[in-house]
């Protein structure tokens, strides 16, 4: 357990949140109430400036945290936590369990990392958006609205990562969901977008249900033990006393008992599954790609979707007491990683490939969490933020350059026209595939190493091989993307072939910065083993930095042989993937047609997303709505939309209401009277007997 930290009051923290929030509110208020559209350059300066200011403040706080201004060197003081308490937000004296929650921000090592990523990458994406939205012909003068939402999102995300207690975190949690919803549906008039936005929001409800129940369960059990608490500090201090309790399962769940920590952990994990698009709640993320590309980069790759990972790490003390929950997390992550990677290989929409890739990489992060390697999960989170934002924005550049072509089958040969875009994309692809020395190499390698050594985890060998397979698949689909888009002959329609060029500079220079980060970002978490080899004294600085918040595992007994084996395995898989992609898409494209009959069935299975939607349909929807033909016929109508789990149950709810309950409300006053009097008689019978 980390040493008791030194708490420092710092009233500057609130401004990290308030600056972007204030900008968003001011611009929104002007727009909605006073109907003032500001000039686009003012909007741009305001919103980018506010995020940059927030980044500056975060950096300043970071400096304070590591004691840059301090008198004493870092190593000699206990780890510091900056805290900024505004006032008591919620406080109830409930029976024996009076508790209160402050509106307070907390800046410790974990928040610092998240905060810097959110504001730093967020700033770059803001700048990029300026160019992107300007280039977008669909834009109907909604620039101010767009940046208003974007800033609001940054503010909500910062609340999430800076929150000192679960309630405030939940505020940020819902806030980011809301902004994501607004931004996915940004181009209104397009029913598909509106639908995707609602879907994202509604799928997340299922996760949020888990989150809320987790909070309540935690609160209830802590209050029961006489230690009511909602702030992370207090929970961490008091959780030990309830961790060993058990809950009796109700009869319909088969009875028996479940550990309290495990059940709370699983509830929270359900929240994380929704937010971070893991199996089975991943269906919303690919659809969310309907939004503008900067939104995909910011929200659906770099920041919001990692909130689930952040939460799991934030609550690591809880998961430490719940090994059962960790097993579920690890397996969910591992299966999702390989599953989503498989799906990514069958996509033709460039953004969808990246969306499934994101799901897959998030699976890696949860795999790390499940192994108890929290710092490594955060390490991968950071590097992933760099290279996935880069890839999305690169894809956005391609989309803008080709005038909104997203289908890779109609691209090709763009290498010569979009030179800069090509090279930054290459950097991103190499980073995600784990090219030795690139950021993704170290983080992925670390995750697989921890899985390999996680002996306490049931089936860790299988998980390890799933991770390796995912690495191979990742290399395959990423190079497939690269080859289809940039290599070979152009397949663009003739009309669009003229004057293809890299987009304007405001879009390109964030890409270049991110490319540098994607290549070199691994340094912050350089593993000890590699540090020793290249003579860096202080390696794994991220891990040491996070040690004040999470438990670091024992260093693995690594020797050159084991490392060679581990790295070799991953590299071999990746090279296989690359080679396959190269053969199929560059050197022998004809082979694909020949393979088609052989691969037909599995390929079709993958292309139909493993028939997940159909499975949901069969398992959840049809039994529920069997009594209603209309919904049934809707359910069979596969052309409609995918993601039947959620929309299917929505339909089931609708069906139940529309076809059964509705008939109670017949419009006949006497029928109402009858029910009312029947209710009265029932009441009477119940009370009197």
């Amino acid at each position, binding site marked *: 357990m980390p040493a008791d930290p030194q708490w420092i009051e710092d009233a500057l923290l609130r401004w990290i949140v308030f600056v972007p929030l204030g900008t968003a509110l001011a611009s929104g208020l002007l727009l*909605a*109430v006073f*109907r003032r559209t500001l000039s686009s350059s003012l909007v741009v300066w305001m919103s980018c400036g506010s995020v940059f200011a927030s980044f500056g403040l975060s950096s300043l706080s970071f400096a304070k945290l590591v004691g840059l201004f301090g008198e004493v060197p870092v190593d000699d003081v206990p780890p510091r936590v900056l805290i900024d308490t505004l*006032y*008591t*937000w*919620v*406080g*109830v*004296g*409930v*029976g024996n369990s009076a508790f209160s929650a402050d*509106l307070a921000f907390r800046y410790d090592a974990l928040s610092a990392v998240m905060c810097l990523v959110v504001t730093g990458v967020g700033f770059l994406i803001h700048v990029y958006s300026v160019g992107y939205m300007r280039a977008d012909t669909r834009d109907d003068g909604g620039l101010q609205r767009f940046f208003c939402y974007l800033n609001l999102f940054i503010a909500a995300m910062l609340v999430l990562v800076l929150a000192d207690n679960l*309630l405030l975190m939940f*505020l940020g949690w*819902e*806030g980011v969901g*809301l902004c994501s919803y*607004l931004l996915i*549906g940004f181009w*209104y*008039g*397009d*029913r598909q977008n*509106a639908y995707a936005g*609602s879907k994202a*929001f*509604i799928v997340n*409800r*299922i996760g*949020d*249900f888990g989150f809320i*129940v987790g909070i*309540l369960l935690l*609160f*209830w059990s802590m209050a029961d033990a006489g230690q009511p608490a909602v702030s992370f500090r207090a929970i961490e201090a008091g959780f030990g006393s309830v961790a060993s309790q058990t809950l009796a399962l109700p009869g319909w769940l088969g009875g028996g008992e479940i550990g309290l920590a495990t059940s709370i952990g699983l509830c929270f994990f359900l929240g994380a599954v929704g937010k971070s698009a893991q199996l089975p709640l991943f269906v919303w993320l690919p659809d969310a790609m309907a939004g503008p590309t900067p939104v995909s980069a910011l929200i659906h790759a770099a920041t919001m979707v990692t909130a689930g990972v952040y939460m799991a790490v934030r609550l690591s003390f809880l998961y430490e007491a719940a090994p059962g929950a960790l097993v579920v997390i690890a397996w969910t992550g591992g299966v999702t990683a390989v599953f989503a990677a498989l799906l990514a290989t069958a996509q033709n929409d460039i953004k969808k490939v990246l969306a499934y890739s994101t799901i897959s990489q998030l699976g890696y992060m949860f795999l790390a969490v499940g192994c108890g390697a929290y710092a490594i999960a955060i390490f991968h989170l950071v590097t992933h933020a760099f290279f996935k934002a880069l890839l999305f924005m690169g894809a956005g550049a391609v989309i803008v350059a080709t005038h909104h072509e997203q289908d890779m089958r109609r691209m090709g040969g763009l290498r010569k026209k979009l030179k800069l875009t090509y090279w930054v994309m290459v950097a991103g692809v190499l980073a995600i595939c784990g090219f030795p020395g690139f950021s993704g190499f170290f983080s992925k390698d670390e995750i697989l190493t921890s899985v390999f050594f996680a002996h306490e985890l049931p089936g860790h060998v299988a998980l390890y091989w799933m991770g390796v397979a995912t690495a191979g698949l990742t290399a395959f689909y990423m190079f497939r993307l690269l080859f289809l888009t940039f290599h070979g002959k152009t397949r663009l329609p003739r009309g669009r072939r003229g004057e293809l060029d890299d987009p304007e500079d405001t879009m390109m220079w964030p890409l270049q910065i991110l490319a540098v980060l994607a290549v070199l970002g691994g340094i912050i978490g350089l593993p000890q083993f590699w540090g020793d080899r290249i003579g860096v004294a202080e390696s794994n600085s991220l891990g040491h930095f996070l040690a004040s918040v999470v438990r670091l595992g024992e260093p693995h007994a690594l020797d050159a042989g084991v490392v060679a084996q581990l790295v070799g395995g991953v590299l071999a898989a990746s090279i296989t993937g690359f080679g396959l992609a190269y053969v199929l898409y560059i050197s022998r494209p004809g082979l694909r047609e020949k393979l088609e009959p052989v691969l037909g069935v599995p390929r079709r299975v993958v292309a139909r997303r493993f028939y997940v939607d159909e499975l949901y349909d069969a398992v959840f929807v049809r039994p529920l709505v069997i009594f209603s033909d209309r919904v049934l016929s809707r359910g069979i109508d596969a052309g409609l939309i995918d993601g039947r789990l959620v929309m299917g149950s*929505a339909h089931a*709810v*609708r069906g*139940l*209401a*529309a076809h059964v*309950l*509705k008939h*109670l*409300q017949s419009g006949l*006053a006497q*029928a*109402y*009277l009858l*029910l*009312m*009097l*029947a*209710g*009265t008689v029932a*009441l009477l019978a*119940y*009370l*009197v007997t």
Partner: protein
Amino acid sequence: MEAEAFDVAALAPLGFVAIGALVTLMLEVVLSRRAFVGEGVDPETRLVARARIGIVLAFASSAAIVLAMYAAIYQFELGFETAFGPGRPMLQLDALSTFATALIGLGALLSVWLSITYLPALRINHGEYYALLLLSTAGMFVLVSAVDLISLYLGLELTSLPIYALAGFNRRRLRSNEAALKYFLMGAVASAVLLYGMALLYGATGHTDFTGISQGFAGGGGLALSGLALVIAGLAFKVSVVPFHQWTPDVYEGAPTSVTAFMAVTVKTAGFVVLMRFLVLALPEMGEKVSVLLGVLAGLSMLIGNLMAVVQDNVKRMLAYSAVAHAGYLMVGFAAGTPEAWTAVLFYLFVYLFMTVGVFCVVIALAQGGREWDSIEDFAGLASQRPALAAVMTLFLLSLAGIPGTAGFMAKFYLVVAAVDAGQIALVLILVGTSMVSFFYYLRLPVVMYMQKRRQDPDAETSSSEIVVLALCAAAILYFAFFAQADPFGTGVRALDVAGRAADFLH
């Protein structure tokens, strides 16, 4: 404080609105005569004159309500505690009743402001409207302080009769007639059931006052329990709890929207407060059995309300089912039955007022040309045309759904915490789960407002009275989301503490 023989000051709020009702009636007669003297007044002039009269009457009613609220708040701050009535206490003036009086007054006040431009827009601008509204308010003032079955019954009738008429106020519209008819029929039967229950309670205990009943109740006994069941059924009707809810959607949809807003907030507040007082005073040891019963009603209301709301295409109807669902949430607090739960219920009612008035105000702001714009399609693309209206509507809906950052979340949170603490885990799970379902329908409106193109193009402007109401409601929702228990401006008033004081009526 010792009960004084006839402490008229105690009745100030009731007096103000009752006198206000008489004054508006008189004013209407006098002003109308002035305006329409002579035969050949053309319709146009007539309309303008009517509009002016309407404004005068609205001001008069507002003044009466503000005075009543002021009196109530003053009494609250003084810590008034008077059992009122010559000889025998009929009304109890205490923190609960003054709190509820102020709350109902606020609901009535906002409803009056909503009506100023709405009534002319629907061409139903008759002066009696305000008198009826004030009389009903007076009835609710009686209701919330009633400590005797007689005053409870009279208060209930005084509350309901004007609302039956108000629901049918749009006489030319068949739907309005029908709403009035249904509300009347169901209401009359419900009050007959209630009355019969009261008779049985009286027969079993020999008393009509709550404390007498609680003494006589001691053993329970079939007669008393039957009476109790009928009384609960009658009151459950007023707060539209399943299975006594079926009038709600029809009446909400058919009644003029300003009336819907009025009854949605005030009747619900009054009904819940009187139910609370009755349960606590007349049944001090509210056994497990009653608690289970209330829990079942709560669960049914949450489920049915939320499920039915999903399939509605009319906004007012959807909000009616949502009101049923919210009644269910509130009943969770009743099932818990702890002082904290009462506090949470009162705070919820307080917040619910702003959300509901706000939502209906948006519907009203769309009404024009003698017709309501209340189907979901009517909201399509509103965000591009009237962005502020769409924004506050979204805020109100999100608050109703209970998303963090709105007062609706805080209200729900306190309720849930109190229920968890009282061990009502199953109900809390239903509450949280059905709240998730509620996002389905609350989100439909933002989706059509923000993500569809405007189809029709009414050129209505939001009137200044509506702007005031909307701004007030929106500000309250944001304010209480963060300062339910804080006092940033140093006023010394914390909303939750106030609710707590009001709930502390058990001595």
